[in-house]
Each structure stands twice: as C-alpha cells, then as structure tokens.
C-alpha cells in the first residue's frame, strides 16, 4: 500500500478518487436534507426532513411497503426451498447428481432477461401478474445459485454428527432442525440476504408484471417518478433514493455479523 505520509502527491490522487466515488452519495445527501434542493452538489441552503417525510408517506410510503413485502417473501421462499433441495443433494448418492449440479451452474450463468418472455406468459396464464408472481419468479431464478451454495455449506457439516444424532434417536426432521440448520446458519443467512437484495433491487420483473400503480415496489416507483411532474423534485427524489439504498447498507452490517461464524469444524476432530 502506498505510504501517503511519504507521498503527498499520492495522497492527493487517492483523495480525488475517493471524492469521485462518493460524489453521487454526497449529492443525494445534500439534496435530501434540503427542502428547497435544486440539484446542485453544494452545501444545503436549508436543512429539514420534509423530503424524507414526503418519501415515506402516501404513494411513496406504499411503494416502500411493497418492496419490503416482495423482498421478505422472496428471500423466505428461496431460503426454505433451497434448504429442502440442497440437503438431499448433499447427503444422497443420486445417479446423475454431479451432472445436475453442473446444470445448476449453467442456469446461474444464463441471463434472466433471456427467459423473461416465457416467465411473463406463464404468469399471465396463471393469473400471477402481481407482486406475488414476481416473488415466485425471482425465487425460481435464484434457486440454482442458492441450492449450490447451500449444498456446499451442508457438505461442511460432518456426516458423523448426523449419524450420532440418529443413533441417539433423532428423526430426520430433528436432525435437520437441531443439528444441520443451526450449523448452517451462516449459509442460510447468505441465501436469505442475497435473495432479499436481488428482490429489493429487481426492476424489470415488477415493471412488466405489476399492473396497478399502488402495487409498484420502490425500484419501479423511482423510475415512474422521473416523468411525473413538470419540474423535477430533486429533494424528494434524493430522499427517496437514500431510503431505497438503506436496506443494502443494513444488510451489509447484518451479513458481516453472521458470516463470522463457522462452527462446523469444532465438533469433529481432524
């Protein structure tokens, strides 16, 4: 690493790069706290929380709740289904298991937009052109990756622990619930948070699935707000964007706390 004490020029260069990086966020911050924001990157003329209030109430507030609903539903469905699918993939010797796992890798690499058309028509036929349908679609698209991830996590849980629990009289459900899942907390947390963020950030699927204004999540609401008024309400948009970005930051801190655990090796020697 460059020792900036020794090189003022390097220090200047790094400071400029840092400034460019944070400037979109600083733009958002100064405009969000200024009720009379004019879209310039400078200290706010006035300071108040009117913009935040506006972004949390009425239609905007509803969109926040829609995003929350979509993301929690998607992440929970994904986590449950991925756990149920990954466990047998990890433990059972199924013919063609490896080929199946490789196909999951392939599915993960395909662009989601490539299958948007059939997904749309399926949703239309089944009457799922709504947020619930979006949650199912995102879950489907997330499952290959999350199944692989959890399968690898389950592989690190030594099978002797399950054998020990089995000889002690635990049923399969008890083995999963009391032994495997607690030891895979980190993996399940990753799956949940990852799915939460993909659903929170998802724009295209809600755009084409959701038919009613009141059901839009924040990603679509932000897009729709651009052309809405004759003049752009910079303060409102900035506040709205910051609120939209908040969960990602919260998720980051929550993931850091959870990913520090790695129990698996401790119960088993060697």
């Amino acid at each position, binding site marked *: 690493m460059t020792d900036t004490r020794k090189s003022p020029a390097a220090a200047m260069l790094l400071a400029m790069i840092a400034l460019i990086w944070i400037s979109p966020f600083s733009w958002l911050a100064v405009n969000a706290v200024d009720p009379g924001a004019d879209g310039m990157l400078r200290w706010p003329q006035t300071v108040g929380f009117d913009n935040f209030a506006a972004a949390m109430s009425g239609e905007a507030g509803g969109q926040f709740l829609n995003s929350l609903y979509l993301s929690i539903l998607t992440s929970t469905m994904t986590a449950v289904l991925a756990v149920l699918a990954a466990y047998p993939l990890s433990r059972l010797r199924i013919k063609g298991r490896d080929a199946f796992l490789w196909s999951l890798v392939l599915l993960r690499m395909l662009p989601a937009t490539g299958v948007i058309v059939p997904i749309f028509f399926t949703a239309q036929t089944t009457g799922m052109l709504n947020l619930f349908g979006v949650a199912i679609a995102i879950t489907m698209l997330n499952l290959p990756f999350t199944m692989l991830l959890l399968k690898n996590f389950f592989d690190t849980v030594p099978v002797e622990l399950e054998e020990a629990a089995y*000889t002690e009289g635990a049923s399969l459900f008890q083995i999963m619930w*009391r032994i495997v899942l607690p030891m895979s907390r980190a993996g399940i947390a990753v799956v949940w948070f990852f799915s939460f963020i993909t659903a929170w950030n998802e724009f295209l699927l809600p755009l084409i699935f959701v038919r009613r204004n009141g059901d839009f999540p924040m990603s679509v609401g932000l897009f729709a707000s651009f052309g809405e008024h004759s003049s752009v309400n910079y303060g409102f948009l900035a506040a709205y964007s910051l609120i939209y970005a908040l969960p990602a930051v919260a998720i980051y801190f929550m993931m850091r706390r959870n990913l520090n655990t790695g129990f698996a090796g401790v*119960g088993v020697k060697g």
Partner: protein
Amino acid sequence: MTGVSLRGVRKSYGAVEVIHGIDLEIERGDFVVFVGPSGCGKSTLLRMIAGLENITSGSIDISGKTVNDVPSPDRGISMVFQSYALYPHMTVADNMGFGLKVRRTPVQRIRETVGAAAKALQLDTYLERFPKALSGGQRQRVAIGRAIVREPEVFLFDEPLSNLDASLRNQTRIEIARLHRSLDATMIYVTHDQIEALTLATKIAVLRDGVLQQFDTPEQVYNSPTNTFVAGFMGAPPMNLIDGRVGIDSSGLHLMLERSDADPVRLPLPDVAATRQRDGQRVVFGLRPEVLGHGRAGDDPARAEMSCQINYVEVTGADRIAVTEFTGGQFFARLPAGSQVNEGDETVLSFDLQHINLFDWETGLRIETRIPAGTAP
C-alpha cells in the same frame, strides 16, 4: 446370556464383498476388541452392529433379539465416534443430554443423569462450555459421557483414541478400562493398535480382509496365534517368523533353520504326531523376541540355544534389540538394556522350548505342538 451374536454376517458394496461370513458370540459384560490392519473391515462390522450400515446377509442379535431390521436408536447401543462427533453449537450438558431430550425425557431427569455422568468423568465444571473450549481429551470424555447417559446394553467404540497424543491415549485407555469395570457393560471396541487390544480386551477378534482370523483371550491370541498373520500382527516387535525344515535323525525330531553365512541352527522339536508327520517338510518357525535370553541353555532339557552373529543392535531405553540373519529372514531378540551384546558379536541366545510356534508353510495355519495335560502325544 449372550450380549451380541453375529452369525454368518456378510457385507457387500455392489458386487464387492468386504465382510466374508463372520461368526462371533460376545458374552454380556465382555470387552471385545476388533483389531486388524486398515481396511480389514473392523469399522464396517461395528457400524453394522450399530445400525449405520445394512447387513447384506447373516444376522446380528443383541440381547437375544435379532436386530437386522431394527433401526439404530432402538438397538440398545451407544456409539463413541473416532472424531468425537460432538454438536459444536451445543454446550457439554446439551451434548450429553441430547439423546434424552430427543426422547422427551423430563428435564429434571435429564439434569440428574447428565450430572451424574459428568461427575463420574470429571466434567462437572465444564457443563456450560462449548466443545471448542475443550481439549481433545475432554471432548473425548464428553463423547463417552453422551454414550453413558443413554444407559445402553452395548457400548460401541470406533477407534476413540486414535486422535489423541500418546500420553493422553494411555490415560484415556485406563479410564475406559475403569469405566468397563464400574459399569459392567458389554463393550465392543475397534482399533488398529494391538497394544490397546491386548491391554483393554477380555476377548480379541483379529480381522484381516473381512475374515475373522482368531477370536480368543489376549493371552491365547498372543501366545498361541492361529496363523502367521495373527502371529506377525500382535506384539511389538512382532513374532519372528522364519522358514525351516522338519527332520528326524539319531538325536530325534528337529527343526533346521538355514543360514547363508553360517551353519544351520538345529532346534529340538516335541515328538508329537503333528510334528512327526511333517518329516522332511518346510514349516514356518515362530518365536517371540522377548523369550530369548543371552547365554547358553546349560543342562536344562526344556531350553534350546542357538549360536549366531549379531548383525545389528537397536537400543530402545528399556530394551536392547539384537538382530541376526537367517536365510528365511531377519530374527529379533529383545534383551534387557544391560545385556553385553554388540554388533558383530558371535554369541549364543537361548529360550524355553515351550515358546516355539510352528505354522504350516503353505496355509500359514498353526501346527499344534503343545500337549494339553492328560492327552497322549
């Protein structure tokens, strides 16, 4: 009353048979050790008794009940795994009480049973700790405690000491022996370490390539091995096994051991039918290194001697291992540390004739030369 009974037990993985028809009767209260080299099938056999592997054919009975199709938790067994298999996210108390909790035992009873087992194993101050805060020996005791708490009819140990260092292994071995005496339980113990087998067992089952070689007391397995494999496997250093030839001359029945750079060694053999009928045949001569002494046999007719040149000497602190060569292989003598034997010495070694073991040269099976009292030769 039988503790565990194995009849014609076989195990195959697909077309490959790994356990070939094992028959064993384990008495209640016995401490039986399955011993053998890696891959001999001892762990597989233990897992079949535990219910963690299916039995391809044959039957296993525990306490008189056939358990082939009985799920593991209902067999009345408790298993201690080589890797301890402690649940890392549970405290010592929860680890030990897991089996009881899963069977909906009342909390108070769990607390009492776990407390008593913890006290017996000196774990009572560690009950609220997690496995990661324990040493290897403590973790092993928790694993044993977890097995005790379930009050099984049979304890199964799968190489429980192999992950411990030497001093801890000795200590834990004594604790397991003490446990066996205090619980008066049936224990089946798997190890590749023949010292563990000899010190812990009331009966040893020696296995090789899925076939039972010998099932007997440690004394019998050590002193009267049924074949050359058992003879060479048990004991450290192992039994000397040298090719020789039986002959009869004017002095009687004898064994000739050829040497490339010296006269052959001539040893008297007991004149019994088993040896007489092998006149002129090759046999394998077995003698444990520790029965040899430095010096002449003197006038004692029960002792024999051989003069030899010492090619190599190994000093191991308590012993002096002297090595001499025969055409059939190297020959080890375990002498006391103070013996005046050095490399290059021409010296005499002697031993009691009753320690001679003879094995068939082709099959490796024991030729019984010792006459039991009251039997005609």
